[in-house]
């Protein structure tokens, strides 16, 4: 049973297409596990449909339709002449790892696209592996906590979204299971602990540290580094 969901504001930004790519990826992973939010997403899409239907029409060039059909025919011909070379299906690179065996579709594709995962040991309890999403505004990574592992208390400088993909973990506020979606604001301190019975895998999306240069940077950066750890 999923208990933690993206809020309606974030779902609406996702449905309207203004939520940043990496956060949308996390929302998408949650949606694939959460029927309740999928239903909400449908309603939000319908708002878009209703607004489209209600828009004040703007005239479109009369030649636009013929132009479009020309493009379609051209594409069809090209496809026919290129002989339909089916693109090679990328091989799954992780099938032997039970923790990665049952990922949401979008995350599976992300893993395949990233290539072999390189796990970096952060502490005895925590390993992490970066995922390549083709953007650098957010850092996207798997975080893997070993059975019963305790992660050192930490906070974040930027917004962080966590989606539990396997196993579960807890902190002082509760227990988080597969599908749960957590948003932490900068400064929230937490100390995750994985449950005893199995490993825990999370997708983590963290706002990349702001790099400020120039005079402004001199003024701002000291504050950043003095945030309480």
């Amino acid at each position, binding site marked *: 049973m999923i208990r933690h969901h993206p809020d309606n504001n974030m779902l609406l930004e996702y449905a*309207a297409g203004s939520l940043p790519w990496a956060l949308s990826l996390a929302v998408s992973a949650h949606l694939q596990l959460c029927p309740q939010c999928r239903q909400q997403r449908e309603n939000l899409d319908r708002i878009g449909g209703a607004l*489209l*239907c209600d828009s004040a029409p703007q005239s479109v060039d009369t030649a*636009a339709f013929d132009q479009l059909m020309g493009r379609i025919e051209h594409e069809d011909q090209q496809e026919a002449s290129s002989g339909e070379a089916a693109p090679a299906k990328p091989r799954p690179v992780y099938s032997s790892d039970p923790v990665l065996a049952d990922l949401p579709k979008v995350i599976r594709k992300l893993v395949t*696209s*990233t290539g072999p995962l390189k796990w970096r040991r952060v502490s005895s309890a925590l390993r992490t592996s970066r995922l390549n999403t083709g953007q650098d505004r957010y850092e996207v990574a798997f975080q893997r906590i070993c059975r019963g592992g305790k992660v050192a208390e930490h906070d974040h400088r930027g917004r962080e979204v966590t989606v539990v993909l396997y196993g579960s973990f807890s902190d002082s506020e509760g227990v988080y299971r597969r599908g749960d979606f957590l948003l932490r604001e900068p400064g929230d301190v937490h100390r995750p602990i994985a449950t005893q019975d199995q490993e825990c895998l999370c997708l983590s999306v963290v706002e990349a540290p702001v790099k400020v240069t120039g005079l402004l940077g001199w003024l701002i950066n000291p504050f950043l580094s003095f945030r309480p750890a």
Partner: protein
Amino acid sequence: MEIPQTRDDDWSQLLVRVGKNEDRAAFERLFRHFAPLIKGFHYSRNTQAFCAEAADELVQEVMIRVWRKAPTFDPSRASANTWVYTIMRNCRIDMLRRNNRRQDSDSSDVDVDDIWDDTADTQPLLFLQRSRGEQEIAEGLASLPPEQSHVLEKAYMEGKSHSEISAELGLPLGTVKSRVRLALKKLQARLSK
């Protein structure tokens, strides 16, 4: 905002014909209807990154995808309006990404349709309410207090995030968020009536 006069089922029927028979006449009618709406939907963005040429380009991209994807259109799952909306949103995200793509960041195979994917196993039980939901939402939108519908229009039609809306209107972020939530609550209440 006005309540739409035509039931969108007509457009849905045309879409089904395009999907089943590659019916060009049906497609032309869809084009004449939706192309001006797609442009109108983005009209308020004209002053910014989204110029009129971009809107014309978007119309072409959207309608090509409508033609290609019509075979997957399922009128029991969504109305033509909502279906075209989701295609349009994905196209726009794609276009904006192509324009902003940084040369130095690694590319990824994950594309827009992977993240904004509506093919996840849906529950048949919900289907019955669907076409009714369309109507309820359109009527609900028309009866929202202006400050609430205004925020929804900015979010959808101008593509602004909550914080951008808050900066533009000079309102605290919390106020924008609560207006959105109140609007959704009202629409939701209509759906569950």
